């Protein structure tokens, strides 16, 4: 499978000269193999993906981890949505009362957006998922609720050879006195276990995290601990804080890695990164 990163930023698009290397667009990742084309989250990065959408693809499946604005802000700017020749499926987490259409429409309708989702020439097919397992083309996908405010999913995408895990907004250490010692009691563990590549929330420093416990995000240090517990082969820091410049991110990574030896590769996810698993 080919994995391309179109947006790495958390919370808010943060384009600036200081963020050029790792990127200012919010979460968006494509996963493709043959004719199958998945998009994980529709942050602002999906706009550029739409502009580079491969010709000949007639179906695209967009999997939303959750509906916080930074993960859907680009949806209305994704050109294939306006192309009737392309069939778009949008998967999102089951909520308590309102269906997925109503929740997406809070943003994709006036006065916040000029066009209503269901008024598109070829409206997307909306599918609610929760603790789910399903197939799209060569991909077997598992979704599971993970620790983040509001209904939020993590994804595990498998093909015949490899495993990709995606948890952009995740706070597995919340309230746990024992993190990360017990796999069965660690949010997201089963999704990430043994993954060839894990993209994981690493928004905060330790100092930034302390007053933000419960906001649903991780420190770089906790992301590393989680990856070690799940025995992944590679983990990239993802969902970068909008205030962290390229230089700052590199300093923070260096600090998080200091005096630690991990059994997996690690790095900072950057817009434009491409991986083949």
């Amino acid at each position, binding site marked *: 499978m080919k994995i391309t990163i179109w947006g790495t930023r958390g919370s808010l698009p943060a384009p600036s000269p200081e963020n050029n290397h790792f990127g200012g667009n919010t979460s968006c990742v494509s996963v493709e193999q043959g004719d199958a084309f998945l998009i994980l989250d529709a942050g602002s990065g999906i706009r550029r993906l739409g502009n580079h959408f491969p010709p000949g693809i007639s179906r695209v499946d967009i999997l939303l981890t959750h509906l916080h604005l930074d993960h859907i802000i680009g949806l209305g700017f994704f050109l294939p949505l306006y192309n009737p020749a392309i069939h778009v499926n949008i998967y999102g987490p089951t909520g308590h009362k309102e269906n997925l259409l109503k929740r997406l429409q809070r943003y994709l309708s006036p006065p916040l957006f000029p066009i209503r989702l269901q008024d598109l020439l070829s409206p997307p097919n909306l599918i609610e998922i929760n603790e789910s397992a399903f197939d799209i083309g060569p991909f077997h996908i598992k979704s599971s*609720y993970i620790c983040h405010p509001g209904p939020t999913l993590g994804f595990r995408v498998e093909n015949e050879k490899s495993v990709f895990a995606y948890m952009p907004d995740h706070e597995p250490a919340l309230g746990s006195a024992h993190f990360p010692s017990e796999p069965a009691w660690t949010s997201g563990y089963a999704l990430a276990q043994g993954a060839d590549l894990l993209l994981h929330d690493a928004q905060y420093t330790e100092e930034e995290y302390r007053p933000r416990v419960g906001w649903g995000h991780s420190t770089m240090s906790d992301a590393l601990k989680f990856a070690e517990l799940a025995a992944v082969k590679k983990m990239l820091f993802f969902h970068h804080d909008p205030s962290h410049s390229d230089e700052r991110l590199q300093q923070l990574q260096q600090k998080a890695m200091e005096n630690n030896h991990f059994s997996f590769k690690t790095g900072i996810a950057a817009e434009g990164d491409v991986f083949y698993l």
Partner: protein
Amino acid sequence: MTTNHIEIILCRQLADFLTVPVFLTDPEGNLLFYNEPAEELLGKRYDETGQVSVEEWSTVFKPLDLDGNILPPESLPLVITLTNRQPASGVFWIESLTGEKNKISVTAFPIIGRPDRFLGAVAIFWKTTTP
């Protein structure tokens, strides 16, 4: 390795911080977790036992009514919650394996996650008096 549902994980994490005895079970009644105050009632430490099967932990306490008669399992709040998936409460005596008797108030409630997944129950044991 399977992971507990996030609702169960968060219930455990809350219970871990509480000073009232809390028991957390799966839908079948197996004891998934009990906190430190509950360890005193159970006479066992979670670190030593881990999860406890329903067969094992249901025999640890002898529930008695206010007149000292043994209560049938189906009248106990946690059993009611697991059976009916509804909150339940009650006041009764329990006698531990060591013969110690405590009058307790038990409140149990179901854990029902999105979308309507019955995942287990929480029981809070409140010691009302000591004999």
